[in-house]
């Protein structure tokens, strides 16, 4: 299939022709169909993003992170959510990963701060990579970076749990908080991933997700 488009700068639209493959109908006549399409782009951004101030750029990125965070963490399974998540980005996962690694390495109970930072950082990225690869190998129709993006965003509740455990030292309260955050993260991630895997292989793809968040929550609990 090919389509040929031309910009029409007069009325800010692009016009094009879709050439479908020639179809042979029942009387052996080759007919090729052409359809003329007109796409009007009414919101063309005329200025490039280089001309805006740094604050505007940062705020826009932060707002996008916030929107995606809300989609991921309030799992309502609407089509808007799904569409929003298709625009993956890796800034959000990086921010949450760094926050979690910093929080855990700065907590007072351990004397191996840099080691913990490195362990958590590597664990999150390698873990997301391996879990996504596992889902792909099982035949799931999952785009690689989109899945890494969602797994990274779902680390946010564990982040919250780690921040709380910095302030509360009472063990049973810590345990309940961390268990709650683990269940929240896992529920969000599982809700996203289970749509992409066939029914008979679902547990095989979801068990690694559970193990991944269990590892991270365990770290949040003991450190």
């Amino acid at each position, binding site marked *: 299939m090919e389509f040929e488009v031309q*910009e029409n700068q007069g009325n800010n639209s692009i016009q094009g022709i879709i050439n479908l493959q020639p179809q042979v109908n029942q009387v052996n006549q080759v007919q090729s169909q052409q*359809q*003329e399409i007109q796409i009007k782009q009414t919101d063309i951004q005329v200025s490039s993003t280089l001309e805006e101030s740094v604050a505007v750029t940062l705020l826009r990125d932060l707002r996008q992170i916030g929107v995606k965070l809300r989609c991921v963490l309030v799992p309502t399974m609407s089509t808007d959510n799904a569409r929003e998540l298709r625009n993956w980005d890796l800034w959000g996962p990086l921010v949450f990963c760094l926050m979690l690694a910093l929080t855990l390495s700065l907590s007072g109970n*351990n004397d191996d701060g840099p080691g913990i930072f490195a362990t958590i950082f590597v664990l999150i990225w390698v873990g997301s990579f391996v879990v996504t690869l596992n889902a792909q190998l099982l035949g799931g129709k999952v785009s690689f970076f989109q899945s890494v993006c969602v797994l990274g965003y779902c680390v946010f509740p564990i982040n919250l749990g780690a921040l709380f455990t910095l302030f509360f030292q009472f063990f049973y309260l810590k345990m309940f908080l961390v268990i709650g955050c683990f269940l929240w993260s896992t529920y969000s991630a599982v809700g996203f991933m289970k749509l992409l895997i066939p029914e008979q292989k679902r547990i095989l793809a979801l068990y690694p997700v559970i193990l991944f968040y269990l590892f991270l929550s365990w770290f949040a609990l003991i450190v």
Partner: protein
Amino acid sequence: MQNFGSNNDLDEKGHVMTDQPKIKVKFEPKPKPSTCPICTVEYYQQFFDIEQRDVYMRIRCSLLSWKPEFYQCVGKNPDLWGPLWISTTIIFILFAGGNLSRFLLEEDKRHFKYEYNYMYVAVLVVYAMAFIIPIILGVIMKYILKSELGVFEIVCMYGYSLSVYMFVLILCIIPYNEAQWFFLMCGLANSTIFLLVNLWDFMKKNKQTTLIAVPIISFNVALILCFKFYFFRLIYAVDD
């Protein structure tokens, strides 16, 4: 047929649209260069072609280790999902459970020092046992001892033989020496019997092939010694 546009339409600038396309977008799958077939994702997809029911049956075969049914379970379809995630689960249990076991025994719980090295050692030991040793054994068996089993079948068998340790190591959190030895011995017996029973057809061929039992048994014994003396060591407080 309805014509939505004839072939010689002119656009507003006077260009003939069909003859001079400005931007052409073609959807054609690019042929993939097969320089390194073992490096692509598609090569490994054949090892993940199983369902959750199959994994359940294989783990069940491995726990009931005295019945030589593993090849009937596996058929022509060795998988890598089992070895990978069973060994990763064991790493987590060693890391969490090993420290938990020491914590339960510790008198001064406020100043308990968590050993993070457990994770690195666990990764080394378990992945070596689950992947490196069976690959070496499989290569020796296939190319030197002329077995009809492939390397991936041996890796699959070794991976599932470790599945009993998932349960044994959770029980080893109980901080009593005798209990830990008992559970580890049960795990050792189950795992070794599973491997020997399923390789028996290959081993009874001649004297050389029977010798393959020696490295199998010794690596398993080394594994549980490592579990007991590194991860679940019990250091009692010295009475002055």
